[in-house]
């Protein structure tokens, strides 16, 4: 049986966060936490001579922005509590210290999959990150899995 949900959920932006300013300290702490030593992310002098003309955040820093207050209450539930099954990220522009990042989120798709362990329903929430110049920085698809 196909999973049932209100089709009006799909593609409706349910939340846009206030801008969050990125600091050089946050990028440094993030690099330390994942053991990142690439000079493009850690060494201001080397980064200046690199392709971005200065320090940028490592790509996976994009997932550190907190989702909005209404994010999780807008993830439809099917059966058990959903858990984070993975992320797909498209990177459009680097994140720099001083950038002010805004997240807009909508339900992208809902689908069902049957595997060895039973039926699962996946809910994909797409968050688009924009910087203060109105540029898209990244699209993040958060994949939540529920067991029916």
């Amino acid at each position, binding site marked *: 049986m196909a999973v049932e949900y209100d089709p009006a959920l799909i593609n409706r932006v349910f939340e846009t966060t206030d801008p969050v300013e990125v600091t050089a300290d946050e990028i440094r*702490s993030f690099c*330390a936490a*994942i053991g990142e030593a690439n000079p493009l992310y850690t060494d201001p002098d*080397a980064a200046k001579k690199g392709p971005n003309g200065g320090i940028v955040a490592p790509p996976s820093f994009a997932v550190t922005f907190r989702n909005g207050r209404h994010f999780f209450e807008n993830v439809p539930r099917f059966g058990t509590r959903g858990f984070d099954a*993975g992320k*797909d*990220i498209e*990177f459009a522009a680097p994140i720099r210290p001083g950038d002010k990042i805004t997240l807009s989120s909508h339900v992208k798709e809902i689908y069902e999959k049957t595997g060895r362990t039973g039926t699962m329903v996946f809910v994909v929430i797409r968050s688009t990150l924009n910087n203060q110049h109105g540029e898209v920085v990244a699209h993040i698809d958060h994949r939540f899995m529920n067991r029916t």
Partner: protein
Amino acid sequence: MIASITEVKVGDQLGPLELFVSKDQCRGYARACGIEAPRFTDDEGALREGLPGMILPGNMSLGLITRLITDWIGSGPARLARIGSTYRVPVQPDHTLTIHGFVTHLHPDSRTAEIDVWMENEDGDRLVTGAATVEFKV
């Protein structure tokens, strides 16, 4: 450093990158990202949630597998354009994790390389899998 996509071949290996991820490093990631869920900071909190012990945030695993690719790119004329990840099994700290990758496809027209990447534990179980696209300027 890879100077051009012409230097890349299907089957080229990335890494492996072997890492011992301690509980303190896991807590450090949670702190750096403002994550407060106890399953990422202490064993008792994780046990209360029915987990075998503290686990890494999924996003931390994503950060570690992404490192394999950005290490491979180095300061070369390329950028990570996309990465998809699947968190298959909870990843526990205080273990040695090995991250592997290899080039699966090349698209000379768009100057892109497709890469499969995965994280294994000491038993060779694939805990996190992913696929990435790297875009070269030349």
